[in-house]
């Protein structure tokens, strides 16, 4: 057994919270042949649990430093570190086939799904893991074969059980007009206002589409320029004007939409002069520096590098205390001023980053002011940062336990004892007094025949086969919705479309020529009603049969995508770090992944006008939207009813 462990070549995907623990426990257990992939660099907030990293390593590659640190106590371990994304093409099936086992310590569902497909295709067992706070889980996924090629031990694959996304959706009209939770205000401050003031000017946010799209308010046409600083306008005057615009005038306008306030409390417009004029003897106003609006900040902030932190300039050092209205207004004004004066080059380019203190301060103040107008509880800087950055909660102990459990499962597989494989769940406390368990273990789940990744899933696609081209099918359905990279499409009638490496130039040309053809007009009898498309991705070895149902007469409001994909579809929105997944099992804790990185919340829903026009359509659309994968769009936000928080 010792020899088996020593010579076993294993791949660790992820060198973060779980990865550090896993790597340590692997080498202490005698593993000596390890490759490690991680694309990230080390951040200060990793140091409370990613114990292979030191302060001096901040900014360096996690994979490389982790490998070096482990060699400090096990010099004979051969660890090859790759700083890269596991989805890069160099980590293909052949790369995976070098390994006996793949061990995942990842923080997002998209990469997990990709590794799952590669493991399925390469025939390599996968041990999966995730943690969040006190909760954690380790699951095993394999299809083992005997010498004759018959399957002997088969478990579910990672995609067999539906995964719940941590990402939540919020209707745009709620964000824009009728917020009733702190998160609504934070989404507004970050996705709408921050992007509008400091992001790319050509970037359309829902802030300025309000009037044009819905014909509400005063109906006056205005471009995004109203949010830009005007020639000769001082930073302070600009900040005050923006305050007036979004917290006074916009609130007054939304009050005119009387229908909105029949069943809810109307907001109260804020007035900057009265807020700043408030007596500073308010009980919570204990900070001397916050005495007289931005004037105090200016004199105080003389020592501060402008563009660094509005809180420092204002003397607001306690990030856990909720600011009063006056302090929020001061931070709002001061953060705009510092952005404009301290970081002029970034204005028009900025993207929200949770590690950017000034950006977080602006978002906190703006969302609190909006919350104040709407009577919503306000947040401390610390909490607002957590919500805006979608920060995953993480502690060392859970990662350590999970790292140990991964190695235990790896050892069982190496010992040739897959019948002992377990899916193990770390519980927060004993849930069943009779069982007395803090760690619960169950047998791995059975594969789901409905799984599109490993099963014989048949998907059902309702689409207009007269007006949808092959190219549209490939882009909208196969690539966007099903996360395929290089799809191949075959019909029962012998038609074939291929993409990918290994094709001659004329083959590529011929394939390209097929893209404009309508589905029902494809050679070999077409892909019309009742026909089946056999779809494959060779890189992922993802294979699925899609039954086509023709439907014309589409309601674009109800189905803006122009198709309905049913049957067993990989679960929704695999789009960013920090997604979480709920594992199967009788006592599965809610889902989990130790992400260190920026994460996102996808916000999507019909616009207010659509809602009012077609309540029924809205219902359908929301249901469908839950399943619709949306690609991350970091820089440019184009869709008007999708807000991503990242």
């Amino acid at each position, binding site marked *: 057994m010792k020899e088996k462990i020593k010579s076993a070549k294993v791949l660790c995907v992820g060198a973060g919270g779980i990865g550090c623990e896993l790597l340590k426990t692997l080498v202490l257990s005698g593993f000596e042949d390890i490759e490690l992939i991680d694309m990230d660099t080390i951040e200060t907030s990793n140091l409370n649990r990613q114990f292979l990293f030191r302060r001096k390593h901040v900014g360096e590659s996690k994979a490389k430093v982790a490998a070096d640190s482990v060699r400090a106590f096990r010099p004979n371990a051969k660890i090859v570190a790759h700083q890269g994304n596991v989805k890069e093409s160099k980590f293909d099936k052949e790369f995976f086939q070098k390994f006996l086992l793949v061990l995942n310590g990842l923080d997002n569902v998209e990469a997990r799904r990709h590794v799952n497909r590669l493991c399925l295709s390469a025939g390599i067992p996968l041990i999966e893991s995730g943690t969040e706070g006190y909760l954690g889980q380790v699951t095993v996924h394999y299809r083992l074969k005997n010498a004759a090629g018959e399957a002997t031990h088969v478990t579910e694959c990672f995609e067999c059980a539906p995964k719940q996304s941590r990402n939540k959706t919020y209707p745009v009209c709620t964000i824009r007009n009728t917020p009733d939770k702190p998160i609504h205000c934070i989404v507004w401050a970050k996705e709408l206002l921050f992007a509008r003031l400091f992001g790319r000017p050509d970037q359309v946010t829902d802030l300025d589409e309000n009037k044009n799209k819905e014909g509400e308010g005063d109906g006056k046409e205005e471009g995004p320029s109203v949010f830009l600083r005007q020639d000769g306008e001082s930073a302070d005057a600009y900040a005050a004007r923006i305050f007036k615009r979004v917290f006074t005038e916009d609130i007054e306008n939304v009050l005119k939409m009387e229908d909105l306030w029949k069943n809810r409390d109307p907001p109260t417009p804020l007035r900057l002069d009265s807020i700043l004029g408030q007596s500073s003897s308010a009980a919570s106003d204990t900070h001397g520096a916050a005495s007289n609006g931005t004037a105090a900040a200016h004199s105080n902030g003389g020592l501060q590098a402008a563009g660094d932190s509005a809180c420092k300039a204002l003397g607001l050092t306690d990030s856990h205390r909720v600011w009063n209205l006056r302090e929020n207004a001061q931070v709002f004004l001061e953060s705009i001023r510092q952005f404009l004066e301290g970081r002029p080059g970034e204005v028009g380019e900025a993207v929200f980053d949770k590690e950017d203190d000034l950006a977080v301060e602006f978002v906190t103040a703006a969302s609190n002011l909006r919350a104040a107008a709407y009577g919503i509880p306000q947040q401390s800087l610390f909490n607002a940062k957590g919500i805006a950055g979608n920060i995953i909660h993480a502690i060392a102990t859970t990662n350590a*336990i999970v790292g140990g459990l991964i190695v235990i499962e790896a050892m069982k597989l190496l010992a040739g004892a897959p019948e002992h494989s377990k899916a193990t769940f770390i519980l927060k406390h004993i849930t069943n007094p009779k069982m007395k368990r803090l760690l619960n273990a169950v047998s791995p789940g059975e594969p789901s025949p409905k799984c599109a990744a490993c099963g014989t899933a048949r998907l059902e696609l309702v689409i207009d086969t007269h007006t949808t081209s092959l190219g549209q099918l490939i882009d909208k359905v196969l690539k966007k919705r099903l996360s395929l990279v290089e799809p191949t499409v075959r019909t029962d009638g012998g038609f074939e479309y291929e993409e990918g490496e290994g094709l001659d130039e004329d083959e590529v040309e011929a394939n390209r020529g097929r893209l404009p053809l309508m589905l029902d007009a494809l050679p070999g009898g077409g892909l019309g009603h009742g026909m089946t498309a056999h779809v494959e991705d060779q890189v992922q070895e993802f294979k699925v049969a899609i039954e086509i149902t023709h439907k014309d007469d589409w309601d674009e409001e109800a189905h803006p995508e122009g198709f309905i994909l049913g049957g067993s579809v990989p679960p929704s929105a695999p789009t960013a770090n920090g997604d979480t997944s709920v594992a199967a099992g009788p006592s599965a804790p809610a889902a989990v992944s130790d992400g260190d990185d920026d994460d996102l919340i996808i916000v999507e829903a019909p616009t207010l006008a659509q809602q009012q026009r077609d309540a029924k359509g809205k219902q359908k659309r929301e249901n469908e939207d839950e399943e619709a994968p949306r690609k991350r769009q970091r820089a440019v936000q184009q869709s008007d009813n999708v807000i991503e928080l990242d």
Partner: protein
Amino acid sequence: MGNDLTEAEAKVYDRQLRVWGLELQKRLMAARILIAGCSSGVAAEVAKNIALAGVGSLSLLDDAPCKSEAAACNFLISADADQAQSVAEASAATLHEMNPLVNIAALPGGLPAIPDPEFLRGFEVVLITSAPFSTLLQYDAACRQLGVAFFTASSRGSTSFFFANLHSHEYTPLETPAGVVPTKAISAFPSLASALSQPWKTLRARYTHKLVYVVRVCADFESHTGRFPTTEDLPALQQRARELAADARAAAAADANGGPLPRDLISEDVMPAGVLEEYVIGNAELAPVNAVLGGVLANEVLKAVSHKGEPVKNFFFFSLGDNVGLVETLGEIV
């Protein structure tokens, strides 16, 4: 309380503050913890976990040479550590690098055979590993006198356990529903001596972890001889197990109130073949077992000093294979 965290502390502890909050972090930062016998891998795991959590001070006590065989599983000892260093010194150096915000001390000497109350008084929590039950019983009793939380842990081969004695421990639940004021609760712990003398007739065999019997037999042996059992001692240990099982059956039969159900009766071979052997012979620690045990135990140490979360009372068992981590409550509260 105001925000007493420095900027450096706030940055490093950010992610865990989001799990357990500022107040709990401040309590951790005031805690003084002793780990004695830190050659073992499980001690190294606990030390790493609580140093990362940011306790106030962590003192290590183990004067074994850092390159000794017994310290093979202690990953805190760097390969290029000075041979002249003790396990405590070499481990402390790494822990200090890992979290410079914690006051890490390598204390001179080894664990005194007789507990020194003046010394123990300096800590809120004492964790002792790699000591026989004869020593552990004395330290548990001494800690009880002082109100110092006492833990011990052992990881041998595929099996492992830890024991916790928080005496009379006040805590608030880990989480309370929104809007509900958390109410304090008190958990009363039996002494180690009481836990180890729990009559077997009271155990429901079907639901009791097999290591309960193994630990009892080994504890009896160690407290009589003052040393760990070896392969040669196996027959004596098995004999002791049979005696205890026979006593339990006799006591059950004499029970006027009907006694336990037949399926709950202690059988003669109460310990499945191999479990006792592995525990006694399996001195070799397994790193993944240490990682699991050390993770759960560190959570308990943090609960002890933060008074947040219902503590494990009073034994936790984990064995590689079934992956079940199970809590047993043994002993009487006096």
